[in-house]
């Protein structure tokens, strides 16, 4: 099971935080800090796996991370997940983001945190991997986006009528 998904930038600023196991607010922040501390001092040419450290569960837990330009994507998982499998899941997630935001960058994650959450919800649900097929994920997100557009257009309509009238 996936216990937490953390995305932060090179300076440790959290960009997306999703815990699937309950931690108190200050504990969460501490975990983010510790994780950043662990991950940030690793070179790019070392392996992508880390033992969980003392805060988030001890030896059964692993941190699996990828570093993209300015962002770290860190998945904290227990022993029931395959290391390489999760590593590729991160890749799938990032590629999906890239597709949904058309060349994703850190700013997209900042300004559209909610949307990133919706996309993530289609990949991981309650700590379980739900979908690994990028096309499926994108399709689900698009269904939701269509709903958004139709709602916006409904709201815009009266305004347009006012103007025309």
């Amino acid at each position, binding site marked *: 099971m996936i216990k937490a998904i953390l995305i932060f930038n090179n300076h440790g600023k959290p960009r997306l935080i999703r815990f699937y196991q309950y931690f108190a*607010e200050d504990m969460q922040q501490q975990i983010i800090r510790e994780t950043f501390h662990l991950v940030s001092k690793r*070179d790019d040419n070392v392996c992508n796996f880390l033992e969980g450290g003392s805060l988030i569960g001890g030896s059964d837990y692993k941190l699996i991370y990828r570093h993209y330009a300015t962002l770290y994507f860190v998945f904290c998982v227990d022993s029931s997940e395959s290391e390489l499998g999760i590593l590729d899941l991160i890749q799938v997630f990032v590629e999906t983001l890239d597709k949904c935001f058309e060349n994703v*960058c850190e700013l997209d994650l900042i300004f559209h945190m909610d949307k990133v959450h919706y996309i993530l919800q289609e990949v991981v649900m309650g700590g379980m991997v739900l979908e690994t*097929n990028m096309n499926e994920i994108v399709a689900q997100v698009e269904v939701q986006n269509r709903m*958004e557009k139709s709602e916006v257009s409904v709201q815009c309509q009266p305004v347009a009528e006012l103007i025309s009238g």
Partner: protein
Amino acid sequence: MSDVVEKTLTALPSLLSLDPQPGSAKLSSTSKLGNLIRGITELTSKHEEEKLIQHELASIKDQVSSPNTSMRQMKELMVRAIYCESLGYEASFTYIHAIKLAQQGTALEKRVGYLAVSLFLNESHELLLLLVNTVLKDLQSTNLIEVCMALTVVSQMFPKDMIPAILPLVEEKLNHPKEIIRRKAVLALYKFYLIAPNQVQHIHNKFRKALCDKDPGVMTASLHIYLQMIQENPEGYKDLTASFVTILKQVVGGKLPMDFNYHSVPAPWLQIQLLRILALLGKNDQSASAVMYEVLDESLRRAEMNHNITYAILYECVKCIYTIHPKSDLLEKAAKCIGNFVLSPKINLKYLGLKALTYVVQQDPRLALQHQMTIIECLDHSDLIIKRETLELLFRITNAQNVVVIVEKMLEFLRVNTDDYTTIDLVGKVAELAEKYPSDTMSTVFSVGGDMMQPDIPNSFLKLLSEGFDSVEEDRKLRLFAVDSYITLLQKEPGKLPQRFLQVISWVLGEYSHLKDELEPTVVLKLLAKLLDMKHTSSETKSWILMAMTKLCEGGAEVSVVREVSETYSSSMDTVLRQRAHELQYLSQDSELRAKVLLRDNAVQTCCVAGSQVDSSLSFLDGFVSEALAAGAAPYKPPHQRQEELAQAKALSLEPYGLSLPMSMSSCSITDRQSPTLLSMSSGLSGDSAEISHKGGSTSLKLDGVKRVWGREGYLPQRAAVEEAAQVEVPCTLRSPSQQGDPDPEKQQLASLFFGLSSQSSVCLMGKPEPTPHRFRRKAKGVTDPTSSSLISTPSNVEKLLCNNLLDSNIASELAVSSAKQITELPQGLKTASCDVEAELTDIADIKQNNPSLIVDNGIVAAADEDPDRPKDLCLISHLPAELSELCHSEITPLCTIQSLVLSACHLQKEDSLVLAVFISNSSDSALQHIVSCVSDSPAEDFRGHSVVVYQYSLTVKRPSIHVSIEGTVSFQLPGEAPQAAQFSYKLPLTIFIRPLTVSTEEYGTMWLSFSHDTKQNLTLIGDGQEALTATLNVLKQKLQLHVVEIIGQEGILSCRLLQDQPCLMHCRVHAGTLAVWLRSPVPDLPDCLIYHCQRALQEY
């Protein structure tokens, strides 16, 4: 892909100052979130950020509470609140509004509301109850997106108690036409299974339906559930093995639609999941494993080394192959695969290769030798994680020859490592090795590990020193060496040493510095005094030092030093220090008293006091106490009693009343909780209850070391018994002992404890021994003769064997406890079981040997192939001893068959116990030798051909679970052949341990109030109208042997007990067409298990 985010930095300034990016639709510069983010980005200090956010939160608070805020604005506010929370600022005032938004908004607003709720709240948050109705409504919605949202939030977090309310709706979704809904529903049910397994017991066959779903996505989702359930109980799902194999075959063969391909690998995540499940199913199961060989081979072959994800599949494949019943050509291929991993230039693969090696090395140490060079290279790898993984691997293959090198490497790593967590872990391992292969590394461990290490490490080290090894000369050398090196350390720079180490040093110097003749006590005293003067020496360390000084001063020149010190500290603020200082003062002046108190006894080797037995009952104070009592003082109450009274005195006691428990047990557990150090007292009570005696046993080991300092030789025999109790489980994980049938059971048991520690490297490679037995070894080495060590050559796969030693009958009670412990710790065990083996352990071996009916017997067994079970049953039953044959017995179930040996079992219900009878029948012509059966060892010396042996075990439940399974091993030897072993398990429902409990309504009332564990659930009534309650209760009475205490109107009370008098009370009330049941018991889990069986009983009816 990696450059995707790279443009961020270049894009940043333009975005902040000007228009939004064209691609992102509503990233408007005027939006409030945009303003906030921009504001934060411009700030430079944490303090300013805090100010800004507080300001922001205040404005959000204003707006959310204003009645004029529309839902649309609320949505925007919520996103801002989420942003603030993710930065670590609490916005709890928005929680209720998030729920409101989810409740009242349109689909879009709902989405934000649900998201906010799932980010803000946790499963136990009280506000979550308000969400239940919304979820209910949305689950019934016709809008697919709303249903999806509801399912998502449900799987993210949902209050456990409310699951029954939505369960039917979620179950219904399993039949939904849309694949995505079915899939989400499956995962939601999985979540329910995780948090409240009893609630979803009844829908297991729906999981099966999901597994057979026509959509592969739904099937994939259901594998999550199966992985979990099989992990808990592999026995229960053996029938699915073939299905999983077929699925994997189809996936590997590319039968899935192209959509499921990832980098042209068919559904890799699905494959990984399936391989994990197969590994669980094939573990220790030859027949299940046989089904898998083909598909595993296929997977290995198909997964060509071209992409990351194929490596993931390969890795799982390899692990699976090494977990299931071995097959040589697959193992060979897997070993080659591991080689590819280890040798790979890709660092992630190297890491996994090392992991796989660590996993495999216990079965096949040769593999590690093959890759020796790579391993050594990895040791110098720049990546700390790789290094650590390598050390872990080395730790597993340590033996007497390479220990020095390996420990050196570990210490090297410790010096550069900065991560606390790793340090603690590794220091423990080094200490373990140092203890196992005594050497002089301990001082380095102490100075490097410092205060990080677990406190029991120095303790056990001191114990090692004081107990010594086998030869007096070695002891002397080691101690001298310690004194020498510590003196040198102190003379250099004691200021840098960690406190723990200083404590160890001062103890060692106090005890052993006299061994070194040329060393003047004054020198040592001065060194110690110097320590005392150092600023950062903690007061705990100081008292250790003062104690050491007390031991050292023998009058003469040193008195002056001592006087100075004792004067300084006798006015110390710290009471402990003050006491020590006074002791020092008096003892240094009165050499006669000193000689009496601190006797140095070189002849006995344990350099300390003999004869000064610690009087734990403090009888010398009796006079004082009686005087005080006479003068009107209140009698002494132990702390837990005071605590209890205090709790009772208060109107609201939150502590459960322990009244119904046997007093010794409750008191024991309370002291246990409050101060672990008190356990030396409670360890004497071991045998009272499983848990406590176990804890007591293991803790007493530690305390033992401390006591030993004061040389209480008098307690040795008692302690030995406790230690044995604490350690019996160790051989189980290592190997099943006594297969060769050594004549001396005692020796054998000891020998098996040492297994894996002996200096033969082949043996050392076999596994990682627990830390406990080492101490044992040192002491007992004298008892073990060299022949027994040759007995420990091992069969492969030994760690899979479960075998509890029950050879020493005089410690039977402790052993029973530990055997219970062992079984509950079984990794696969959802079902926990425990078996108290009856004290007399009735071996009715060969009882029927002279019986002429045996011949008939054989004929039937031989014919049994065509005409199974029934006649066989009958004939086996005839082997039961007379006192049992009259009891009603269950059907005889075959357990396992190895060659000519057939194992079967049945259980018999007695009034006050449950007896398990295991039949071992030998249909071969030749006699078997040295049968060692099952749950305990009860060796039958010779087992002639064509005969049946019956073993009886009386079972009790230590910790209730829905089903109880007993696992055991039978091992035997044919004359002139190698010994063989087989495992079997036997499953029982909890219900057969249930007996009626006759109590009166009054008794029921008092008991009800005193029980602390309870559970409530609604059950279906049988029949309707007035008679429904009576009818339902009668069914329960018949099926579960419950005792109906009384039925009053629409309410009924029932009672029962688990064997060995663990009561459980039941209160039923007819309410709105259902039966509201409330169960209470002092035993945790019992109510939950019982409600499950009640449910089943009523359903079956």
